[in-house]
């Protein structure tokens, strides 16, 4: 966190609903956030032990409420690639996780059309088994059936560029190979809403081009992308719209050019 509050508010959040109305007059909303508050508690000790429970005579732990997201409202439409920017701890990841159903909202509500998935299949993969088994494992984790995975298997391997290494255990892969496999599996699922948290700047140049292609494909198929990134280059290159969160509050919502300019001016 920079600690500096932005000196001049540039893009007025109040105008956010009408801002891109012309372009989306006919587009279908895919994600609707209505006055979303997300507050969670963090505890001094990560986890309560029986001993501390007894020692504190069954009083609850010392805790602090973190208001990660405060009164955020926006509507995302099919075909949009929405960048989410803001300093560290501004609530970007929390918002993404709430859209993905991994974090409950405290107040307000989030509506999603179809399926929303976080690009984060890495945690489902097992280092000791082959890339081939991991494609199955990751696909099943993301809700594909065995049959769907078999149908898309070749495409996933080819997209990841791992034809030669697919029968080696995952632990022998380089971090770039691993990241490519993860992106290939996650995006093969073709969720209606794909949530990407700082993961795009992986792989070499040709893989980045292919991932960009995949994202465009998904958008064309009436999907919506959310992309959290600190790289304004990536945001400007990929996104059609940008949300700027600062300390949990939506500070700006508009075209990448305007919002990034305002963000750069403020930080």
């Amino acid at each position, binding site marked *: 966190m920079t600690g500096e509050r932005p000196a001049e508010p540039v893009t007025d959040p109040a105008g956010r609903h009408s801002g891109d109305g012309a372009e989306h007059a006919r587009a279908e909303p895919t994600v609707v956030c209505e006055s979303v508050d997300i507050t969670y508690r963090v505890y001094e000790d990560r986890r309560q032990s029986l001993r501390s429970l007894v020692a504190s005579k069954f009083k609850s732990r010392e805790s602090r409420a973190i208001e990660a997201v405060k009164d955020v409202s926006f509507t995302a439409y099919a075909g949009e690639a929405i960048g989410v920017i803001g300093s560290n701890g501004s609530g970007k990841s929390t918002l993404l996780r709430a859209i993905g159903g991994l974090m409950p909202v405290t107040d307000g509500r989030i509506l999603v059309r179809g399926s929303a998935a976080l690009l984060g299949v890495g945690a489902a993969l097992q280092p000791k088994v082959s890339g081939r088994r991991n494609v199955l494992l990751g696909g*099943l984790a993301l809700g594909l059936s065995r049959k769907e995975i078999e149908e898309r298997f070749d495409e996933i391997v080819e997209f990841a560029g791992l034809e030669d290494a697919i029968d080696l255990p995952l632990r022998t892969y380089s971090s770039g190979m691993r990241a490519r496999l993860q992106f290939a599996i996650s995006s093969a699922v073709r969720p209606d809403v794909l949530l990407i948290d700082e993961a795009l700047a992986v792989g070499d140049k040709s893989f980045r081009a292919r991932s960009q292609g995949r994202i465009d494909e998904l958008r064309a198929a009436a999907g919506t992308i959310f992309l959290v990134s600190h790289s304004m280059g990536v945001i400007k290159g990929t996104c059609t719209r940008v949300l700027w969160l600062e300390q949990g509050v939506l500070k700006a919502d508009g075209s990448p050019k305007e919002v990034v300019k305002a963000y750069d001016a403020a930080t």
Partner: protein
Amino acid sequence: MSRPPASSGDDLKPVVMRPGFGAYLRETWQRRDFAMAIAGGELRGQHMDSVLGNLWHVLNPLLLAGVYYLVFGVLLDISRGVENFPAFIVIGVFVFHYSQKTIITGSGAVVSNEGLIRSIRFPRAILPLATVVGHSIAFLPAIVVMLAIVMATGEVPGPEWVLLAPALLLQSVFNLGAALIVARLTDLFRDIENVLPYVFRLAFYGSGVLYFPSRFVSDPAVLAFFDFNPFFAFVSLARGPLLAEMAIEPLHVAVAVGWTLALLVGGFIFFRAGEDRYGRG
């Protein structure tokens, strides 16, 4: 909301983190292949770690049974009228060890998968389910070894031996119910993981694994404890068909079925209640 012809077909729906009980069971069942894949991957991974690999799933109970037979069968001789004492101990140790191993591993199903829980949506009951499936598969070769030893000690296979299959299947479902409960308990209190081995150590001596209870105790209250102990019921349900000198008792069937149903239903209810808390520290 009107549905446009070209959309993917769904309307806007609120994000639900904890579906209703029926929907939760349905979702868990729909994702069963994921549980199988986790279990399969873990079994494949394990065999690369040590020279003997998955053989340890058989060697562990075998060595345990050997040690107990030496101490309690040969040195202390507590057989007291059990004619085929080696087979009696082998069945007891194998069957008890199966539940012990499964449930203790199941207690870590949530806490050891926080990364997965934090990044992918799926019914979390898949995780204890995967543990139970994995241990069930790993137990299959152990059953073969157990049967071989029982035959080597002079028991003759008969048609009643097939009753071992439903008994072990019921025990696996019991293990699932227990794993669901301890997985959530461990998420609430990490200490449970440290306590469980001692609970099972105590249960081991209180489940007639090494001796036949009614030949040692006459107090009806203590005997009633054995009668309603699910582990004693499962051990007895395995000995009944395999040992000529033992029979399957209706009481043990009733106790095993009762515990299994209670733990399965209670386990799912209890586990689902924590669904939106898992993985959040």
